[in-house]
């Protein structure tokens, strides 16, 4: 029996393309976020509220990842923000080459903030670098306070946690302090925002942080 030694990272090809994406973003001075959550946590709603608040102040662009349809890109396009839709046709996460291909349809010159909305999934996207500055994980209170312990990889790899739908706290058995505590056990350096896209609570704080990050990237 002959043994051929390889010793390589399995996702080296994805990491290589993510590195190329990152260089391109840096060259254009674009700050990039990779938005990850389970389906229905409010990724697109947070994007809409963010665009409403920052749209006039920061030049934004959006890449939407979905298993099927371009409904999300249509929602974002209503705000006159350049939006490119990636339809994965069953694929459960975005990979760096899909983002690279989407960039063919997006003029990066002048863009200050690019938000990539990943496919709704708390598991699969976590290991695939897209070239972003930060992963942002969104957990809504209706999902319960144990999500960080059940899906630790993504909470560990993210820099920011947005706890969304806080206006529904009174109706659901979710203790926001337990949720925060669980998230910090998995990732003690996580930056946490509490938001409601319905009442607008916390959106100002989130956008304030975002603005600071964008100006640092320029």
């Amino acid at each position: 029996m002959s043994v051929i030694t390889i010793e390589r990272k399995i996702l080296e090809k994805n990491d290589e393309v993510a590195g190329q994406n990152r260089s391109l973003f840096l060259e254009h001075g674009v700050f990039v976020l990779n938005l990850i959550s389970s389906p229905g946590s409010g990724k697109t709603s947070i994007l809409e509220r963010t665009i409403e608040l920052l749209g006039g102040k920061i030049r934004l662009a959006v890449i939407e990842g979905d298993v099927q349809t371009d409904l999300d890109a249509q929602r974002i396009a209503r705000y006159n923000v350049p939006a490119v839709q990636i339809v994965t046709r069953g694929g459960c996460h975005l990979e760096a080459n899909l983002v690279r291909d989407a960039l063919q349809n997006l003029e990066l010159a002048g863009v200050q903030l690019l938000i990539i909305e990943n496919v709704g999934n708390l598991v699969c996207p976590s290991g695939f670098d897209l070239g972003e500055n930060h992963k942002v994980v969104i957990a809504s209170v209706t999902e319960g306070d144990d999500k960080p312990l059940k899906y630790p990889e993504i909470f560990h790899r993210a820099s920011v946690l947005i706890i969304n739908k806080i206006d529904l706290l009174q109706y659901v058995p979710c203790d926001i302090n337990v949720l925060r505590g669980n998230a910090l056990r998995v990732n003690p350096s996580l930056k946490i925002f509490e938001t409601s896209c319905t009442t607008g609570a916390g959106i100002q704080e989130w956008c304030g942080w975002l603005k600071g990050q964008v100006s640092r990237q320029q």
Partner: protein
Amino acid sequence: MHEMSIARNTCEIALAHLPADDASPVKSVKVRIGELAGVVPESLRFCFSIIAGDSRLAGATLITEEIPATADCKTCNKQVSLDFGVFICPACGSTEISILSGTELQIIEIELNDDAGAST
């Protein structure tokens, strides 16, 4: 089911490393999977068997070496095993830890069924 994508990448790397002048069947492909890599070994083996089926890797076994999560605690200066998904030192409760192992996602080696005797 991102294991399908990881299996596809594994097969591509393995195929690229097969010797062009030796058509011996592949006995096994060995990968290393850290506990924190977010990959389910059973799923990966299943996906590998499907993707390998159409190639020179057909019939090969995917051997998964699973690596536990360990860390260096900066506060109590101990090497500790982490409880799954909790990034706090189990000995002293400190959050000042650096991960030593558990994030691996690597392809290690391929074994050929060529009766040539063990070699590397």
